[in-house]
């Protein structure tokens, strides 16, 4: 097999930081090459060097593509050669149609006048190739994330792609869409297109990758041949974190007490389509010291349930009761929910969880400003003490609590979110996808914090799409599908197969 891409001795420094240190990467023609590593290991930087986002001259080293040395001065250069990158945050214009998006900047036009006929017919061909059954005129905003991802890929195909780079393409997709995407990659491989796949999901990587390169602290620490015999996940993790994680989940000895939190017959309707129920007659309870999981596919209504419980932050026409210690409580505003002892840490920390441009110190007390104030006057010394205390207790890695949270890694941002809610003093903590987009090492630390909180008698609800995670850290699991709770089991009896079959069988009933 011939080598299509050869990156040699790539070194890239930012003021004060060596982001990449003498990295070599070689991709063979028609292979799927996985790139793994913790957040901050240098994966994205390496891809930015490759795609010309960091132009030639701003790094050291040599890039050879199809045997020729390349000196890209921008992303347009690399695209001309057939290197196309699809970023984690999709770069589509929501209010334009699929066809307009695919040919944006590359319009089928003569003298500036768009040939809509050709645009639409080319789009139809491309959509057929990626297996997306939508009209080219559909606006992107009407598509789910999975389909948007396919539009991105169709866009890449429209540019005669030779090497496709996908940055965490499945991080926000459900299992079915992820499967479909991976299948598509295998089809491309058969058609001779090489891909570089950046992902945190090791099971997916071992399914499709031919070669795996592990990056750690800006250096390529190993390249594993994944063809034929599957590489063990343990090996990959060991290379990623530089130590072996014997247990991916911290040990726990649950001490479960009385029921603290109980939800009865909770129903909420979709804010726009008010006839549609996003939560349908849901009842559940959580005991002191217990970690309860809510499993389900993307779109099952788990986040909607949690947000409607938390101050009716989502949905309309909400009915049902919430009880704390057997007494009904008012959760009609976020403030009242917090006063009742309920906190909700969002799945989307950048949009809903943090004031990104503000400091760690000022983010932590946001949900409990009274806790650092005398009357309405903030005591900055108490604020600092609080920030330092949490920095210590849950090990937020930062140069100072005056650091802006936007500059923290995902795992540390998540810790700031947790600190914020812990400082609000909850009895019930609802954690929505608490480890999304954070690396293996930081995940373990989050799990340890959850275990620690349960030990202090808090009732914890974990919503997660990663089933192994739920199996690893919870005591009891509810299964949710299409707005309803369709099953409940102690974690000791649970397995991925059991949960999936509950979901699938409940789906068939409708």
């Amino acid at each position, binding site marked *: 097999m011939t080598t299509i891409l050869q990156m040699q001795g790539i070194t890239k420094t930012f003021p004060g930081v060596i982001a990449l240190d003498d990295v070599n990467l070689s991709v063979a023609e028609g292979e799927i090459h996985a790139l793994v590593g913790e957040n901050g290991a240098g994966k994205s930087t390496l891809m930015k060097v490759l795609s010309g986002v960091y132009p030639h001259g701003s790094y050291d080293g040599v890039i050879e593509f199809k045997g020729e040395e390349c000196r890209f001065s921008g992303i347009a250069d690399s695209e001309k050669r057939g290197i196309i990158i699809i970023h984690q945050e999709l770069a589509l214009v929501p209010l334009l149609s699929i066809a307009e998006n695919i040919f944006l900047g590359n319009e089928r036009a003569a003298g500036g006048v768009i040939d809509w006929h050709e645009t639409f017919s080319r789009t139809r061909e491309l959509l057929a190739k990626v297996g997306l059954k939508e009209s080219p005129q559909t606006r992107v905003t009407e598509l789910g994330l999975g389909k948007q991802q396919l539009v991105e890929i169709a866009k890449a195909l429209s540019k005669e792609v030779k090497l496709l780079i996908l940055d965490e393409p499945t991080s926000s997709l459900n299992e079915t869409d992820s499967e479909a995407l991976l299948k598509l990659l295998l089809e491309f491989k058969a058609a001779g297109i090489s891909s570089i796949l950046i992902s945190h999901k090791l099971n997916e990587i071992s399914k499709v990758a031919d070669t795996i390169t592990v990056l750690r602290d800006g250096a390529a620490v190993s390249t594993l041949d994944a063809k034929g015999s599957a590489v063990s996940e343990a090996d990959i993790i060991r290379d990623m974190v530089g130590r072996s994680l014997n247990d991916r989940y911290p040990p726990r000895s649950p001490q479960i007490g009385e029921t603290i939190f109980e939800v009865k017959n909770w129903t909420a309707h979709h804010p726009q389509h008010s006839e549609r129920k996003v939560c349908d007659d849901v009842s559940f309870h959580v005991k002191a010291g217990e970690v309860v999981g809510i499993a389900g596919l993307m779109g099952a209504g788990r986040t909607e349930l949690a947000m409607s419980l*938390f*101050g009716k*932050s989502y949905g309309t026409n909400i009915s049902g009761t919430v009880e704390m210690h057997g007494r009904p409580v008012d959760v009609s*505003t*976020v*403030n009242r*929910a*917090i006063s009742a002892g309920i906190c*909700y840490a*969002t799945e989307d920390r950048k*949009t*809903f*969880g*943090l*004031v*990104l*441009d*503000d*400091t760690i110190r*000022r983010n932590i007390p*946001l*949900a409990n*400003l*009274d806790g650092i*104030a005398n009357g*309405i*006057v*903030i005591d*900055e*010394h108490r604020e*600092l*003490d609080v920030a330092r205390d949490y920095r210590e207790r849950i090990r937020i890695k930062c*140069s*100072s609590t*005056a*650091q802006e949270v936007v500059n923290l890694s995902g795992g540390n941002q998540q810790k700031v979110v947790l600190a*914020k809610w812990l400082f*609000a003093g909850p009895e019930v903590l609802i954690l929505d996808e608490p480890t999304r987009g954070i690396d293996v090492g930081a995940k373990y630390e989050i799990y340890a914090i959850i275990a620690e909180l349960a030990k202090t008698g808090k009732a914890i609800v974990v919503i997660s799409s990663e089933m192994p995670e739920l199996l690893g850290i919870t005591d009891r699991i509810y299964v949710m599908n299409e707005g309803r709770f369709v099953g409940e089991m102690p974690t000791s009896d649970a397995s991925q197969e059991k949960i999936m079959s509950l979901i699938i069988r409940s789906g068939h009933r409708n």
Partner: protein
Amino acid sequence: MSQDVIHQPSATKPAPSGTAGASASFIRKHMREYGILLALIVIMAFFQVVTNGILLKPINLTNLILQNSYVIIMALGMLLVIVSGHIDLSVGSVLGFVGALAAVMIVQWDMNYVLAGVICLAVGALIGAMQGYWIAYWKIPSFIVTLAGMLVFKGLTLWVLAGQSVGPFPRGFQLISSGFLPDVFGIKGFNLLSMLLGVAVVAVLLFFGLRSRFRNRSSGHDDEPALFFFARNFILAAAIVYLTWALSTFRGFPNVLVVMALLIAVYSFITSRTTIGRRIYAVGGNEKATRLSGINTERLVFLTFANMGMLAALAGLVFAARLNTATPKAGLGFELDVIAAVFIGGASMAGGVGTIIGAVIGAFIMGVMNNGMSILGIGIDYQQVIKGLVLLVAVIFDVYNKNRA
């Protein structure tokens, strides 16, 4: 005014102060805050030289303060509006409208001017509240609501005044703008009360500055290098003492200056030290996250606009009293000066960033340039061009700094 002292020391690394490295990193981090102060000093020095010393003459300093008082008063409210992520284009028209209302009530209806003043402030707050209602609870973009308000109140000003200028005001009302602190000590040619007041302010500022520095030290709070702390406080103290002395040798502190200083102190305290101030920054920084933290973001935005309306009304009274007449043209284009002052002072269009002191300095930069260029006899045409360029440069400097960090 003392609160910005606490606000500033937040360099990233708790390195020992005094070393070159710490100073360098501190400058990098606080480039903006020092930059704008430095810019004001440089601009003042420049005009002081080219106007042959007219700029800092007591009579001109008094003028400078009177000329810019209404811009500064409105800039305080505008800072809150902009920090919360919005904008208010209606303030110029509201200023004109309230001035007209005051004139009609006091001059034509013979109403007691204190009562009329109170009514005017209430009307201003009500106007702000009405606009804030649509912005906060109906999510109508503030640009559009206040653009509508700008047209509506410009029209209403004309209607209230029936297209005529109305004046003059009674002596008592004029004193808002043209009055000075009484000369209780009776020393000829020197207002000792003003001088004492100025010195007292300096003493209080230094006391709070030192106290907070000492406290920050003892709690290991990240700190400003000693050199910067003393230089900044020395410049500030010297400036206030000089201003005080100059004003005292003329007619003393104008009443407006006292009102303005109090307002600056109060708003500075609110923004940097109170929970409501903190919440306004949070709303501007990330509205969704703030709402999910249990904060009533709608009410906060609503109050921010009501407050803006009230300050615009106060500025309207000050302006009418200064001109001693209400004209249909009053307030025309003032919103742009106010907004420019806030942005020159370092606030961000996206919200969540900005300080009261910055906005005040921004307003003074605009004011000194206006004043200096007028003394030099530069035409209004060039003045506009130069002011526009200064605004652009200030914001480019901001963005450049941010990208580099």
